[in-house]
């Protein structure tokens, strides 16, 4: 407890007299600017938090020390004094050649990890020559159809020196398989490579909607990946349980926290149900949160996330290894907070958002570029974004002490509040039978849709201010040029794909695809098959097509 009963009573007494003598008198003459002060998530914020609001606060129970249970203050004992977070800009566009160039540029600029953005056809399991890929090739990320593309993308980049994060879900296993084979060809064995595949299909159903198969077979593929990596790629983060997209879809901070952790609970349960030991795979689970604009709400969210996860892993799943209890997370500043109007202001938004992620103890960070509501970022814009992180790390001094906001009455109150509100959602999801049944009845989807609509209404009524959109507006030309991706990319990519198909051994390809269908129908490990299949240059579209035939396709349940 922060104060003994007597001291606390004294504080409460002086607070009462302050309220009566000072505050109320002032308010009688000068009312406050508003009747309600709320976070961007519409959570009401008190005027002042004093020890009165934290009467039961127990330092050991609630905070502990960095690197020790319940990890509220951070997952490592030395945090940024030991090592800074990984600066990892999400990048990918056009052909693998284009993206390879951008990767080399970013590494030269001092970036410390790679993060691949794939184009939509790859995310959805179509090759670049599929009719569904019309207009999409290379637009929103890099086109990857076969091992050839992965080889080109990482040419000249030593995979034993960098770690790579791949934002890929439905076809995650196949892309990881390609990465493993590229490393192998570089002479780097699988147990020496490190990185992350997002592989978080549950949040796809909830928010991001890049799904392929129905939930249950998707979970089977994921457990196959968990089991394969535990034995063969031990340094790989097998699932990056993501709240980022949930938030971008319009959720509140509490919903982001709750639904992400509920997804995490779903994966751990699935791993256990598949016969794995929780302490074998839990240490390789990582998280991915949004760094949104409401500064303290975000910081409280990260702190609460660590505490809830540690408690859930220990109490609910009986995990014993410390590494299983630690919630490590990547963060990305909020794309949906950026404005097309006066876009240079986006640099400022990104800066404060990034600062909240650092004060909240992130393990890696992507900062958005100022032009991202208009197009994919140019080299110039992405450099400013990376510099933003470097300035926070090297100039502001916030990295010198661990969890500098720990013990702030307000931040601790808000952390408790986030935890309590998130737990209510998690209990509701448990009541619905877990996250998969909850998704099937559309529960999180509907909650998020309602929150998004509510926020939009607040913006339109000027109850929430977006600078340059509903206040301080001015007409202006876009002050910089944008990255354009022309249709030539699609032609090049399709030509390269055809070349690959001409050169490969078609008999081996067919044999691999047949084996995948057989294993999908039975109980073998699909991940093993993926590695063998991509080595023969089976394309990801071909492999997914086979799996669609076995598992069926998920369709938009259209929760309105």
């Amino acid at each position, binding site marked *: 407890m922060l104060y003994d009963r007597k001291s606390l009573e004294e504080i409460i007494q002086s607070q009462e007299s302050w309220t009566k003598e000072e505050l109320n008198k002032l308010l009688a003459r000068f009312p406050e600017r508003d009747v309600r002060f709320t976070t961007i998530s519409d959570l009401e914020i008190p005027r002042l938090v004093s020890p009165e609001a934290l009467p039961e606060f127990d330092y050991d129970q609630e905070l502990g020390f960095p690197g020790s249970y319940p990890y509220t203050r951070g997952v490592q004992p030395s945090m940024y004094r030991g090592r800074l977070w990984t600066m990892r800009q999400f990048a990918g566009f056009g052909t693998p050649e284009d993206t390879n160039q951008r990767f080399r540029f970013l590494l030269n600029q001092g970036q410390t990890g790679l993060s691949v953005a794939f184009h*939509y*056809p790859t*995310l*959805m399991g*179509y090759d670049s020559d599929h*009719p*569904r*890929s*019309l*207009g*999409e090739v290379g*637009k*929103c990320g890099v086109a990857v159809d076969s091992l050839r593309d992965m080889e080109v993308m990482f040419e000249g980049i030593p995979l034993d020196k960098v770690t790579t994060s791949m934002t890929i879900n439905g076809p995650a296993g196949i892309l990881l398989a390609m990465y493993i084979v590229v490393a192998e060809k570089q002479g780097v064995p699988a147990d020496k490579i490190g990185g992350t595949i997002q592989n978080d299909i549950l949040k*796809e159903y909830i928010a*991001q*909607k*890049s*799904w392929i198969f129905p939930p249950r077979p998707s979970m089977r593929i994921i457990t196959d990946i968990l089991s394969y990596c535990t034995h063969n790629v031990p340094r790989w983060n097998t699932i990056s349980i993501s709240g980022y997209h949930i938030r*971008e*879809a*319009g959720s509140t901070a509490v919903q982001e926290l709750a639904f992400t952790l509920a997804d995490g609970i779903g994966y751990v349960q699935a791993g256990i149900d598949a016969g794995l030991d929780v302490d074998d795979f839990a240490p390789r689970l990582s998280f991915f949160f949004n760094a949104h604009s409401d500064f303290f709400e975000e910081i409280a969210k990260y702190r609460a996330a660590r505490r809830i996860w540690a408690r859930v892993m220990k109490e609910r799943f009986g995990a014993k290894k410390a590494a299983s209890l630690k919630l490590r997370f990547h963060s990305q500043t909020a794309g*949906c907070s950026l*404005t*097309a*109007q006066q876009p240079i202001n986006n640099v400022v938004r990104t800066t404060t958002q990034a600062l909240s992620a650092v004060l909240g103890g992130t393990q890696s960070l992507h900062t958005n570029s100022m032009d991202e*509501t*208009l*197009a*994919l970022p140019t080299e110039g814009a992405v450099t400013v974004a990376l510099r933003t992180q470097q300035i926070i790390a090297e100039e502001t001094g916030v990295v010198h002490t661990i969890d500098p906001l720990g013990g702030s009455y307000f931040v601790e109150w808000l952390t408790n509040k986030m935890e309590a509100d998130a737990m209510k959602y998690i209990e509701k999801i448990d009541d619905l039978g877990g996250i998969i049944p909850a998704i099937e009845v559309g529960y999180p989807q509907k909650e998020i*849709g309602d929150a*998004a*609509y509510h926020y*939009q209404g607040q*913006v*339109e009524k000027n109850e929430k201010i*977006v600078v*340059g*959109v*509903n206040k301080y507006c001015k007409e202006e030309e*876009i002050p910089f040029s*944008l990255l354009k*991706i022309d*249709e030539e990319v699609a032609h090049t990519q399709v030509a390269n794909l055809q070349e690959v198909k001409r050169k490969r051994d078609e008999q081996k390809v067919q044999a691999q695809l047949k084996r995948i269908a057989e294993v999908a129908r039975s109980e073998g490990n699909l991940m093993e098959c993926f590695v063998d299949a991509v080595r023969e240059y089976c394309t990801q579209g071909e492999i997914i097509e086979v799996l669609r035939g076995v598992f069926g396709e998920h*369709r*938009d349940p*259209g929760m*309105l």
Partner: protein
Amino acid sequence: MTEQRKIRVLIAKPGLDGHDRGAKIVARSLRDAGMEVIYTGLHQTPEMIVSAAIQEDVDAIGMSIMSGAHNVLMPVVVEGLAEKNAQDIAVFGGGIIPEDDIPDLKEKGIKAVFTPGTPTADIITWIKENISPK
């Protein structure tokens, strides 16, 4: 018969991107402005959109695209309508669409383009001023 004409609008998500936040907000806003809104769901091909618009006999189609595929997909829908003799159905769009692309889209028959930050009230006003129920 007692006549009761309503504006009917199809809101569609063409292409592969799954960002339906905007489309759903627009759909709800149009409903709250008294229109009948048919929502097609995600991952629609231009052919599916054209066919749904004709079967539903809508007055307008609103498409939301975030993936950058707008220059290809939106005009294909306009062409598809023309092929089916349904040019009377107005097409408008929204999403991550650079200012530079808008003149070309308009040239190709997209009647209005709403970029990020547009209040839903502006979209409603545009529809009410430019679209009348058949």
